[in-house]
């Protein structure tokens, strides 16, 4: 029903626009008759837009409110009706009955479905019908009132353009606030869920205990019934994989940037740079598949040839692949930093008889160091937050090890594992994912802010 109303909105907008414009034209009088013609403040189109805004925005607000709050409203209302009916036998709450009705249980004759389900199903249909009617009514009233009153406001005194432009500015301002709202949404939602987790598990255990086994048992007498939520092994695994990745991406990215900035010819640069960017453009799920299906088995073969014990989901395969993926981050940012160093420094050093490599190592890289450090920090932040490669190629076992041939797990892997199974939303297990997410968010945020600060504060000014 409301879907149809959404489709009506553009029609309403078009109607408002043409009504407003026609009204303005009528006010202005016959264009061919100079005597009766009145000069309006704005163009006829502005009056059209003025009515359009008033005719379309209030109904739009009605629809948005109905979409956002309608579901909760219906649920609450129906639940209270079920409780009032007195048919609940205490084994199920009204909410559970409602969920079962939504799942179509009332339609199935016999087992599970009972009188209360039938009643609830009727109540649901009734309430939904009422709400639909209310929405349609509110929509019609809002549209008609907006259209009528805004059209009546069109007089010679109305400065339609100013109104329209002010509305537009508010819309623009609101759009730029969406990004801020997103950040607030992230922080608030992660924070609240994490707080609920910390009511079940103390922060001290989470941050300092070394036992991670979030699988909570269904029955209390099973082994490991409580689950252990010491995230240290998870953090350690993340650090190990990040370290492996950076030990690839750091040197390779920096040397590639140096080569591109100082040695490569213009033509070589013009095709090598885009190719390096392609590496960053390939979706991470593709790199993950490569790590799991191609590189992982190779690492295993290699390790066994060297007589080593290699886990089938070794940290090495995931780390190396991630390292390759973040090479372009290091190289393009380092390249920018190196290119920002004034030519005079390089030429001065070369003129003193230093070779190119001595100039680079002793003059250019130190001068560009803040930018390079910033690039490395951003790459680390990227590696910590990277998800698909580790989900597909690293393991689930929370081992505390520095051996790259063993399987380790990471923060992102645990978040995915904890939240993709079928479980209740309020268990410690799922809430733990939000605690990990909050940690991840603040660590990457801190790295990004520090990277920006390093670049700004320690940049050498040469001009």
């Amino acid at each position, binding site marked *: 029903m409301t879907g149809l109303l959404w489709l009506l909105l553009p029609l309403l907008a078009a109607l408002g626009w043409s009504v407003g414009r026609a009204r303005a034209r009528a006010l202005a009088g016959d264009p061919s008759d100079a005597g009766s013609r009145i000069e309006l403040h704005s163009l006829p189109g502005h009056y059209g837009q003025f009515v359009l805004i008033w005719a379309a925005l209030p109904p739009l607000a009605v629809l948005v409110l109905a979409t956002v709050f309608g579901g909760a409203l219906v649920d609450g209302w129906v639940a209270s009706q079920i409780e009032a009916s007195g048919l609940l036998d205490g084994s199920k709450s009204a909410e559970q009955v409602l969920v079962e009705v939504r799942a179509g249980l009332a339609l199935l004759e016999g087992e599970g479905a009972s009188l209360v389900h039938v009643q609830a199903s009727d109540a649901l249909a009734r309430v939904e019908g009422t709400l639909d009617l209310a929405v349609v009514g509110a929509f019609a009233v809002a549209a008609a009132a907006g259209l009528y009153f805004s059209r009546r406001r069109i007089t010679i005194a109305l400065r339609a353009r100013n109104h329209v432009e002010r509305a537009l500015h508010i819309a623009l301002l609101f759009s730029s606030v969406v990004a*801020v709202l997103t950040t607030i949404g992230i922080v608030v939602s992660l924070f609240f869920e994490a707080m609920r987790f910390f009511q079940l598990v103390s922060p001290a255990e989470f941050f300092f205990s070394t036992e991670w086994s979030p699988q909570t048992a269904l029955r209390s007498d099973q082994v490991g019934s409580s689950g252990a939520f010491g995230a240290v092994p998870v953090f350690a695994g993340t650090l190990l994989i990040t370290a492996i990745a950076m030990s690839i991406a750091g040197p390779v990215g920096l040397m590639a940037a140096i080569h*591109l900035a100082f040695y490569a010819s213009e033509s070589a640069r013009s095709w090598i740079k885009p190719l390096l960017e392609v590496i960053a453009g390939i979706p991470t*799920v593709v790199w993950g598949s490569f790590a799991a299906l191609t590189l992982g088995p190779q690492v295993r073969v290699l390790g066994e040839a060297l007589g080593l014990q290699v886990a089938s989901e070794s940290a090495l395969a995931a780390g190396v692949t991630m390292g390759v993926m973040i090479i*372009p981050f290091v190289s393009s940012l380092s390249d920018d930093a190196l290119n920002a160093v004034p030519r005079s420094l390089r030429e001065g050093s070369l003129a003193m008889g230093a070779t190119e490599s001595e100039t680079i190592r002793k003059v250019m890289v130190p001068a560009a160091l803040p930018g390079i450090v910033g690039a490395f920090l951003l790459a680390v932040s990227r590696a910590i937050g990277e998800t*698909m490669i580790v*989900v597909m190629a690293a393991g689930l076992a929370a081992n505390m090890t520095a051996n790259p041939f063993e399987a380790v797990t990471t923060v992102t892997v645990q978040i995915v594992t904890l939240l*993709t199974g079928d479980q209740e939303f309020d268990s410690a297990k799922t809430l733990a994912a939000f605690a990990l997410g909050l940690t991840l968010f603040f660590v990457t945020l801190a790295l990004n*802010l520090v990277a920006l600060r390093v670049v700004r504060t320690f940049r050498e000014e040469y001009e």
Partner: protein
Amino acid sequence: MSSSPSNDAATRAAEGRIQERYRTERLFQAAGVAAIGFALFALLALLVSITYQSSSALSHTYVELEVELDADTVDPRGDGSPESLAAGGYSRPLRNALRARFPEVSGRKNKRRLNALLSDGAEYQLRDAVLADPGLVGQTASFVLPMSDDVDLLLKGDIDRNVAESDRKLTDLQIEWVDALVADGAVSHEWNTGFLTNGDSREPELAGMQGAIRGSLLTLLVTLLLSFPVGVAAAVYLEEFAPRNRFTDLVEVNINNLAAVPSIIFGLLGLAVFLNVFGMPRGAPIVGGIVLALMTLPTIIIAGRAALLAVPPSIREAALGVGASPTQAVLHHVLPQALPGILTGTIIGMARALGETAPLLMIGMVAFIADLPSGLSDPSTVLPVQIFLWNDAPERAFVARTSLGIVVLLGFLVAMNAAAVWVRSRFETRY
């Protein structure tokens, strides 16, 4: 003129040092070449291994069988209506056809193994053929039907015949039957067109990407409809109208930081807010689209601001000079000039959103869904998630499907990036 011996030694030492320095220089340069070589080699290895692995999924093995369509079995009501034909049993005619081809097979176990040579999809294909031509009922006709994924792998050499019987998926007897069929010339390889037209399936030979492609299109549609207007509006505000104050600084810092937030965090936001607070449907393109739109927004805003900044002030001033209001100057003159740059940024943002997996796992787009999604709130999956699911599937034949899925995904990405390059070169004005 003679030089003293000590001078000679000093010169030699100096020459040695110079040689040493030059050697360091060459090594340093070689290290740079090696670094670039390593990165490009990794890229090449990725592309080659995917192309190589995907090749075996390009075709599938079919067998031609004489099938007797017994009227009682396939037309249970006997009226030849589509409903009756759809309700008919099609596995028995197939079993009989195989039995007729290999009359010597006896014993339940061996008969079952014989039946296992055909794909589970063969009976549906037979049913579709009969539905398309009801005149086939009661007749014996020859059909080309898909064989099972294991037979396909065997004939493509991916199952090693020399391995012990217990270690492979096909028994010696089954291999014998397959070889007999091949010797008859009944076996053929045909293009795996179902890969693009079928939905997902547990059977590798029936699995296709159509569901994921539709899911991706629906999701990207939502993402585009939300992130493009909001992103452009935010860019216009920040670049053209925003006063220079604390609040604007906050918004700018915030957008830059948002661009660097790990994508999985956006998934957690979607799960906590859109699914649990607003009660939106799990795994639906509408939720995925909103989450990806929030993620893409910083990209579009940053690209949009750069494009607006590149429009020379003279355009603005000329518009203001002939009496346009500041809003008119921006909307009628500056924004159209900046649009190619904004579009390029948007397409690149969309390409990134298309390849994004992690946040969509969080909001439940990870379930096995065989039906094709038809609406914004149907549970669905998207291309990268489909690749992720196949990557985890235990059947050997899914390895090739995973790689072919990657080829399809990369194809879409290449097309989108090519479109971005084309838009830039075709419409961009340089000053």
